């Protein structure tokens, strides 16, 4: 990986990033050690299961269903990390009105080195799918996902970034067609640094897109996100809910932009970026950006950074809740805002359990 050319902080999109660990991670050899206990979510309706170890499918422990493995048609050549992801990986293409049987689960295990993988999701008219990806292990997992949603299709994509150490980078490129709906919800609650990039284009009328994430960081961890929701057609609705929690010397940075093109009238775009600082030396960075070229739109953003509300703590205290409990309660509620949109109860429960595990490690 001597070809690794990484952007510098002087580039606007990488202003708060720290990619200094990547060259070293790229040169390491994978150990290939896969834990026996994998974080599959127990579901009432079991769907396809894919296990990738260092970016390669472990066929013995996978059940592909409608998912195919092979070359994928997705490009994001202008993105320095997406460029590395390559052109092969997994592909989910669903025909008219189709849906896989149950939740599609994908577990990515990195065993100490760098692995790159691309993916393509294409849902035809009125098709629907729910996919949950879980990242564990150590090393650098670099992913590129192309998403294409045709008229009326629906995709729920949830991601658990639980790597113990190293780096996880995920780039999404999505086109959302007429009346289609895309919800991407992520939770970073491991020990790894992360970088999330998303470009979600509402290319059809009355399309819906939501990008919600909870980023939890401690130690010297860094979470870094850069997301653009582009309204190219009228009557689209978008929501972005970001909740960052930084403890110790950690930093969470979120740059989220809503773009409204010239003719995308009746757009309704909303952003909510909130940061919670748990320690003096922690950092929260936020850049909620609006770029609007149409006049009949409803766009708003709100951003707050601070510590837990003293009034709320006092109120809980007056009700007999201990200070520690009150803190935990309010912090969980803070994080929950970003995870509430997850559809399946089992998936949501798994996410909340991850949050609990994170808090338990405090």
């Amino acid at each position, binding site marked *: 990986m001597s070809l690794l050319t990484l952007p510098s902080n002087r580039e*606007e999109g990488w202003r708060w990033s720290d990619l200094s660990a990547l060259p070293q991670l790229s040169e390491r050899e994978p150990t290939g050690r896969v834990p026996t206990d994998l974080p599959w979510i127990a579901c009432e309706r079991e769907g396809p299961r894919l296990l990738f170890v260092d970016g390669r499918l472990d066929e013995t422990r996978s059940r592909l269903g409608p998912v195919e493995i092979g070359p994928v048609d997705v490009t994001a050549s202008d993105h320095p990390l997406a460029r590395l992801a390559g052109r092969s990986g997994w592909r989910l293409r669903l025909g008219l009105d189709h849906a896989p049987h149950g939740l599609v689960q994908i577990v990515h295990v990195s065993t100490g080195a760098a692995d790159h993988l691309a993916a393509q999701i294409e849902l035809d008219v009125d098709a629907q799918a729910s996919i949950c990806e879980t990242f564990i292990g150590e090393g650098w997992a670099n992913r590129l996902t192309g998403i294409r949603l045709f008229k009326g299709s629906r995709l729920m994509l949830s991601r658990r970034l639980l790597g113990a150490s190293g780096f996880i980078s995920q780039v999404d490129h999505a086109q959302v067609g007429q009346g289609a709906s895309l919800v991407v919800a992520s939770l970073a609650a491991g020990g790894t640094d992360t970088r999330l990039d998303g470009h979600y284009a509402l290319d059809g009328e009355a399309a819906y897109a939501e990008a919600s994430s909870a980023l939890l960081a401690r130690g010297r961890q860094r979470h870094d996100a850069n997301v653009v929701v582009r309204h190219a057609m009228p009557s689209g609705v978008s929501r972005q809910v970001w909740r960052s929690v930084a403890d110790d010397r950690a930093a969470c940075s979120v740059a989220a932009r809503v773009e409204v093109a*010239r*003719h995308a*009238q009746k757009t309704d775009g909303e952003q909510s970026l909130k*940061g919670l*600082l*748990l*320690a*003096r*030396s*922690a*950092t*929260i*960075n*936020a*850049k*909620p*950006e*609006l*770029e*609007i*070229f*149409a*006049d*009949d*739109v*409803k*766009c*708003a*953003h*709100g*951003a*707050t*950074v*601070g*510590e837990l509300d003293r009034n709320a703590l006092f109120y809980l205290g007056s009700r007999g809740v201990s200070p520690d409990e009150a803190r935990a309660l309010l912090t969980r509620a803070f994080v929950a805002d970003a995870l509430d949109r997850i559809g399946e109860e089992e998936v949501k429960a798994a996410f909340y359990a991850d949050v609990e595990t994170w808090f338990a490690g405090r």
Partner: protein
Amino acid sequence: MNRPEDIDVRNREAQEAVDRASTYEWGFTSDIEQEFAPKGLNEETVRFISAKKGEPEWMLDWRLKAYRAWLGMQEVTWAKLDIPTIDFQDAYYYAEPKAKPTLASLDELDPEIRRTYEKLGIPIEEQKVLAGVEGARKVAVDAVFDSVSVATTFREELKKAGVIFLSISEAIREHPDLVRKYLGSVVPQRDNYFACLNSAVFSDGTFVYIPEGVRCPMELSTYFRINAANTGQFERTLIVADKGSYVSYLEGCTAPMRDENQLHAAVVELYAHDDAEIKYSTVQNWYPGDAEGKGGIYNFVTKRGMCAGARSKISWTQVETGSAITWKYPSCILKGESSVGEFYSVALTNNRQQADTGTKMIHIGANSRSTIVSKGISAGRSNNTYRGLVRVNGGAENVRNFTQCDSLLLGDQCGAHTVPYIEVRNPTAQIEHEATTSKISDDQLFYAMSRGLPQEEAVALIVNGFAREVLQQLPMEFAVEAQKLLGISLEGSVG
């Protein structure tokens, strides 16, 4: 180097260029003999300016240092602006009205300049002051006509209070120690491309010093005016408020019609000691170019205030309706404990104007507070961007910031953008940011029109309501002027 016949030729050329003026309401030029620095920019130009102003050696060295640094710097490209290439060699860097005998009173002021002020619409109160009407409210005017201050009123009264209100060239001569101490202390020479250029070639500007415990007895005001064709204007303003003092400073400007684009790169530095307060208000109405975007002023301004002392306060209020390109971020460095920074802004763009404006609030001191209220109005084919930074350093406990930036779009060919940066390193900080984007609702418009207002007036009324929170912050005469300005600037944008 500068033969008289050359000067005549240049003056004639300048005059001819100006005569091509057409529709701009305030697009007139006064016929005053100019003396230009040679066209272009090199060390000689810098030396010429310094020599012309009879500056001491240290000042020349300071300028040369900036000029040499500037040569190695790059123009900024991060703003959401489409800036045509500027040929820095194709401009004059110095123009001065020919020396007149010292005036005993303002009545003796060059009638040509007086007329210019009248056309500029200097508020009635100040016109009374200029006409010497007894009992007129006191507003001190330090008029900057092109590059050199030609008149300063009320100097005596200010002197009694101990306030120093001089052109910066005079201040360099009369109070070199003060100028030397503070010049470049808030905006360092190498801060950015345009500030660096200004440091090298600034022609004139204002220096204000308010001594300890003094509340400046009047509002200080400067009228800027770009007058000679192709003369870049490089103003330098330095305001120092010593412990426990207060000053309110007004800045307003219009410029005549011009075909070539004009560059304006000013630097304003404010310095507030313990318990001092500086209120800085601007109404900016430079020529924005015609409906097709031809001509117009390029306004690249670096404005920054240093709240150095405990409980100091700096408040910026701006109404920006002019200029083809506005690049301007009046900022506050809140270093003192419990210091306060405020930024109130209305930026209106029409036709093909571009504005990228906002503020920075850098919280270093504990308990420092800041408020940002920005109202952007876009019409025609213009683009209006709010760009701001709120930073809380690790050591700054209990910082409070509230930011509100609202955008109003008039028509479907314009753009409104909001680019706020929030960087917080202390958990005790409380940072809130809100932004909305909307258009004038049909209901509001219908209601206003059903009451007999023509559409344009109805729109102006609603826009004024939208901007009210900011206009309220302006001193009264300015507020009235600013309201009218919003209406005038929107002409032709509706219906």
